[in-house]
Every structure is written in structure tokens, then in C-alpha cells.
């Protein structure tokens, strides 16, 4: 599969569907994450109300985003931190590089950060002779495999245990670990032992942020492994990479989100580690970083404000939408060819990368609505996907045959009597064609559909005919009563 190319979604999907290892990895996602989330939500009767409050808070902040960011900056600086406003990924890369160079950094440890993925930070740092060391186990696995993440919270979710065993043996043998480990506890321990010294050796630690608190100028990370905390505590400098919409007004407001995040993401009551960081180490602290920097990344988000996709900026990156998406579950994250995947990625990526290059992604959905149902901040993902489809059509990105097909359908759809007539002819014709077996093996213009399955032959009446008859019968029944 070719990575990071959303233009070949269809080819990637074909490869993914034929990949048995991927399918077995994805089956575990469906069996584990979906019931875990439901159980966690059921255990907290106030979940729906908290979720609604979270949605309102995000909407409030987005409408006053300039104010809250300025307050965040003021309070972060007052605590001794530095804030770097970066309009583009390039600005953010340069800001990080400059900080790294200020201490002559050779290695940086990294906690898991989607913003770092978004700005392709590892590639950039390597180019400038700085070694980035991913410390989240999932990120570590995909760094060894030289692959992008396939899930926003479980980056290596597409890998089976055996694939990780092979990968560890391949990369750890040169470190003297020549035994192929096949049991997860031993594999986890091997990675732990290899990464341990790296935390102490790194000059700079980079983490993301789940939230920024305007009131205190703090950043929050929510993790399970403890790697993010080692990453930000041991080096000389802690850099936080965060996007604009992560800011919330107060500690109490952040708390509301913390109550819905882990439950939606992993089905935990609370993640093992929720850490609030404010500025560098204090004069009488015995440990902690000497400098604290926050990179504030825009990269298209300010332009989403006030637009029809503003709702997407409420996203808290829990991953519930992808865990519940039948398309994501089937094809996995790499198929999307973008950093953000699944339903949230299919809505966010066109905003970040342009609608032309990503036109397949909003179409990779049956619009079944499960994503919106489980979204803790009620983002209307199906509606936003439909909007991108319209934009893509308007922009002329849709191939001629598809455009022609849609125009053909629209011609009838705008003339109900003609639609009715055509539909009657079609269902009767199809019934005739499928009269022997009750199904059709092949259909003109729909080979893509019938190649994989048969079309059940219609029973002979259109929906409209049946509807009219039912209404008539009901009226008669009503009159009789």
C-alpha cells in the first residue's frame, strides 16, 4: 500500500480488503473498543449531559477563540513559558528546530502527538540531523516500521502481534536482543528497557496537548503508558505542539472534557495519567524541564471558523467515530492516505489539504450515522461529509462519467412524474430479467456492484406505488372505523 496519498483511496481499499492480517487486526478493534465504550458510558448516568455541556463549551470557545488564546498566552508567559504562533506547518517546524538548536539537541524524545504527525515533524528533524525517538509504544512500533499512524489513538492498531514480534526482532537484534518474543508482556518489557535510557539522554522532549487552559496557561496530556510524562520531565526543554482549538477557559471546564474523553476513546473510567503542565521547573523544584514552549498551530483552522465545517473544530480526538465506522473497520486507517483517518479524518482532511486532493475521502462513507451517534461533542459528521461531496462536485473534481450519471439522475429527480414513470419501467424490466432465479448476476452500468454480489430482482412495484397503496388502505381503514 502506498502511504500518504489520498488520491488512490480506491486502489488502497482493494489492497486492504485482501490483506488477511489487517482484517484480523481490525476485527479485534470492533470486538473490543465498541463494547468497552458502551459499558463505560452506561456506568456514568450523566454522560449525555456532560457531553452536551462539552459541546456547548467548545462552541462558546470557538466564538471567542482570539480572546481565549490571548489569555492562554498571557498566563503561560506569566508562568515562565514561551508561546510560538505558527500559521503553517513550516512555521511550526522552524520554531521547533530553533528551540532544539538552542541547546544543540541531538535526540528528542516524543510523546504521542497528532499535531506532530500533521506537521511531519520526524521527517523534518531527521533532515536536520536530530534523532526523534517515539516513546508511545504504538508510535514506536510504526516508527520502526516506517509507517504513518493508522488510528488517532492506537497508531499501530493495524499490526498483529506476530507482525510486531518480527519487527522487534528485526530492529532489536542489533541491540543484543536476538530472541523473538511472542508474548505481549515480554514484548512490552523489551520496548520499555530499550527506551528507558533514551528518556534520560534526550535534550528535548516533545508532547502534544489534549487541552490548553486559558486561565492558568497550562497544557494537558492524557495518556496511559507514562511515556509522555517521562518525555516532558527528564530533558532540559519541554515543547508542546498544539492546535488553536485545544484551548478551554478554566480548569473546571477542562474537567468536563476529561470526564468524556477516556470513556469515549478506550472505555476507561479515566486514563492512567492526566498531566497538567504549567511553565518550566520552579526555583525550588528538584526535577522538571528548564524551559517550556508551546507551539500554537493554525494550519487552516482559523479559516474553518464561521464556515460550514466549523463544527469539526469541536473534535476532542477520541477516535470513537473511527472505532464505530463500518468503512474504517473494513479498510483500516492507511487506506485514507492522510494523517487523520476515519470519519473525522474524512471531514478534517479536505479542510487542511484541499478538497480536490482528498475528494475520495468524504465518499468513503455509507452515511449510516454511527459516527455522529457516538461522537461525544455531537459533530454532525454525515452532514459535513455530504457538504464536502457537494464542494467537490462544484469544484469540478468529479470525473465525467460520475457527473453525467448524477446529472442524469437529477434530471429525473426534479420531475416527479417522469421519475415515477421511469422507476415503474425499471422495476418491471428488472423483474422480467430476474424472473428465473429471482436475482440478477449482472447489470449494465452497475458492474462494480454486481461483480461482488447479486442484485435481488425487484418484486414489481415501486416504492411510490406501494406507498400510495398503503396510504389508500389506511384511509379506507380509518373511514371504516
Amino acid at each position: 500500500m502506498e502511504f500518504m496519498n489520498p488520491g488512490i483511496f480506491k486502489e488502497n481499499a482493494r489492497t486492504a480488503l485482501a490483506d488477511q492480517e489487517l482484517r484480523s487486526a481490525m476485527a479485534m478493534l470492533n470486538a473490543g473498543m465498541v463494547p468497552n465504550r458502551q459499558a463505560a458510558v452506561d456506568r456514568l448516568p450523566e454522560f449525555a449531559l456532560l457531553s452536551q455541556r462539552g459541546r456547548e463549551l467548545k462552541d462558546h470557545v470557538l466564538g471567542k477563540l482570539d480572546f481565549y488564546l490571548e489569555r492562554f498566552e498571557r498566563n503561560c508567559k506569566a508562568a515562565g513559558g514561551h508561546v510560538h504562533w505558527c500559521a503553517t506547518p513550516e512555521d511550526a517546524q522552524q520554531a521547533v528546530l530553533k528551540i532544539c538548536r538552542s541547546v544543540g539537541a541531538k535526540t528528542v524524545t516524543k510523546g504521542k502527538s497528532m499535531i506532530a504527525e500533521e506537521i511531519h515533524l520526524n521527517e523534518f528533524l531527521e533532515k536536520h540531523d536530530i534523532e526523534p525517538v517515539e516513546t508511545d509504544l504504538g508510535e514506536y512500533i510504526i516508527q520502526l516500521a516506517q509507517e504513518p499512524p493508522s488510528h488517532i489513538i492506537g497508531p499501530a492498531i493495524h499490526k498483529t502481534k506476530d507482525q510486531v514480534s518480527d519487527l522487534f526482532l528485526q530492529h532489536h537484534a542489533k541491540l543484543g536482543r536476538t530472541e523473538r518474543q511472542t508474548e505481549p508482556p515480554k514484548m512490552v518489557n523489551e520496548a520499555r528497557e530499550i527506551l528507558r535510557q533514551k528518556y534520560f539522554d534526550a535534550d528535548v522532549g516533545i508532547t502534544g496537548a489534549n487541552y490548553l487552559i486559558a486561565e492558568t496557561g497550562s497544557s494537558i496530556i492524557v495518556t496511559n503508558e507514562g511515556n509522555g510524562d517521562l518525555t516532558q520531565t527528564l530533558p532540559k526543554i519541554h515543547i508542546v505542539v498544539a492546535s488553536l482549538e485545544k484551548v478551554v477557559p478554566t480548569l473546571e471546564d477542562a474537567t468536563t472534557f476529561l470526564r468524556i474523553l477516556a470513556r469515549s476513546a478506550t472505555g476507561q473510567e479515566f486514563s492512567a495519567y492526566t498531566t497538567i503542565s504549567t511553565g518550566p521547573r520552579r526555583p525550588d523544584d528538584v526535577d522538571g524541564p528548564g524551559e517550556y514552549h508551546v507551539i500554537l498551530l493554525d494550519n487552516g483552522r482559523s479559516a474553518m471558523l464561521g464556515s460550514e465545517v466549523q463544527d469539526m473544530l469541536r473534535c476532542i480526538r477520541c477516535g470513537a467515530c473511527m472505532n464505530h465506522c463500518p468503512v474504517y473497520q473494513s479498510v483500516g486507517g492507511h487506506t485514507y492516505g492522510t494523517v487523520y483517518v476515519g470519519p473525522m479524518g474524512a471531514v478534517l482532511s479536505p479542510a487542511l489539504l484541499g478538497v480536490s486532493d482528498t475528494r475520495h475521502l468524504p465518499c468513503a462513507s455509507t452515511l449510516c450515522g454511527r459516527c455522529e451517534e457516538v461522537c461525544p461533542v455531537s459533530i454532525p459528521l454525515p452532514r459535513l461529509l455530504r457538504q464536502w461531496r457537494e464542494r467537490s462536485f462544484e469544484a469540478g473534481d468529479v470525473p465525467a462519467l460520475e457527473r453525467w450519471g448524477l446529472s442524469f439522475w437529477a434530471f429525473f429527480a426534479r420531475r416527479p412524474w417522469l421519475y415515477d414513470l421511469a422507476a415503474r419501467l425499471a422495476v418491471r424490466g428488472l423483474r422480467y430479467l430476474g424472473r428465473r432465479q429471482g436475482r440478477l448476476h449482472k447489470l449494465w452500468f452497475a458492474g462494480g456492484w454486481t461483480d461482488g454480489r447479486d442484485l435481488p430482482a425487484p418484486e414489481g412495484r415501486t416504492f411510490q406505488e406501494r406507498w400510495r397503496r398503503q396510504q389508500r388502505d389506511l384511509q379506507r381503514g380509518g373511514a371504516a372505523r
Partner: protein
Amino acid sequence: MTGGKTDRGANSGRQAILGAIRQSLGRPALSAEARHELDDHIAKHRANLVPARGKGEHAAQMERFQEMARAAACTVEVVADEAAVPGAVADYLRANNLPTQVTLAPDEWLCGLDWGSQSMLETKQGAAGIEDMVSVTPAFAGVAETGTLVALSGKSHPTTLNFVPDYHVVALRASQVVGAYEEVWARLRKANKQGRGFVMPRTVNMITGPSRTADIALTLELGAHGPRSLHIVLIDDQTGQD
């Protein structure tokens, strides 16, 4: 990160982003009055919805705290008074066949306990180094709603003690157990009050069970990068309750 050039560069990014936000929102910067209103909202920092499970009697919250902490894979032992803590720590380490070299948080109360009474323990104080296997620390609070410990960084509690050693033991007093996170914030605002606001410590760690990962084939494993176990010695002193 000083020097005129950097500041100008950073400043242009700042103005561009704030300008773009205002343009998209279709309004200029907020008026002084509107800003004042939002500042007031921040200053009041009202709690949003607090779940019912985070409210109620202290005795019930003590029960819930233990139940939730155990559900998050902590072990919990209740002792009658603080004098029993060193013995409880020694017994725990011995029963689990763990190292007996212990790094204590340089906390006045914790270090004031009679560690000398435990001849098998070898104690030292300070931050954690890579070779340290067991840490014993206090905590600022325990939160019943999810069995979460809250630790504040400072000279008496180095953050590394919470993450570097393989085994973490926390001594917590019953009076430190509260129902909901918001109560911890209220206590923190009071304890660190400065002027009209308060001082946030460099790090506030909310810790719920030992380190864990499910990154290999969604199999949950404890002891990913942080502590492999988290043992809570809960001192049922029942003093200073509010």
C-alpha cells in the same frame, strides 16, 4: 529564545492568526466590556456538571475511592494511623518480593515517619534516577469518582518519583480523599492562593492505576513505561474532615 528577530517573527505569526480568526468570525477584536465579561467568567471558574457519584458522605467516598482504585489495578491497604505506614510499606515490598531500597519523596511529613523502625528498608530521599526501583510519595488528594491520585510537583515531591521507579507506593490520609475532581481544584486554589488567583505547580499529575498499554494487538499490559504497580497505603485517620 530572545533577540529582536525572533520576537518580530513570532509577533507577525501572532497578528496573522488572530486577524484570521477575527476575519472568519466576522468581527473585530472583542470590546473591553466583552473581554471583561469573559475574564469574569474565568475568575469565577464555576464547576460544570459534577456526577452524582462524586458527591455524598465522606465514608461512602472512602469506599468508592478504594473500589475505583482497585478497578484501575491499584492495590490498597488501609492502616489505622500514620505510624503504621513504614511497616505497611516494608510488608508490602516483602510480600511481593520487591527491592527494599526505597526512595522517599523529600516531604517533611513523610520523612518524619519512623522509617528507622524498619531494619530491612534502606531509604534515601530525592528525585528518582534510572536505577531507582521503588518510590514512596505522599499525594495531594485522592478522588473517589475514578480512584485517582493527585500529586503536585514541588521541592517536597519530585515528579520523577511518580514515573521512573518500577514500583510506586503512595501514602494517603483519609482526610485527603474527596468525591470529585472539582474539590481537588478548590483545595489547590486555596492552598496555593496568591493575590486574587493561585499558583499552579509546574506539574499536576492525576494518576489512576499503574502504567499500561494496549498497543500490541489491543492486549492490555501493565507496566508500559511508568510504574508496573501502584500501591496505596490509606491512613484511616478521619481527622481534618470537612
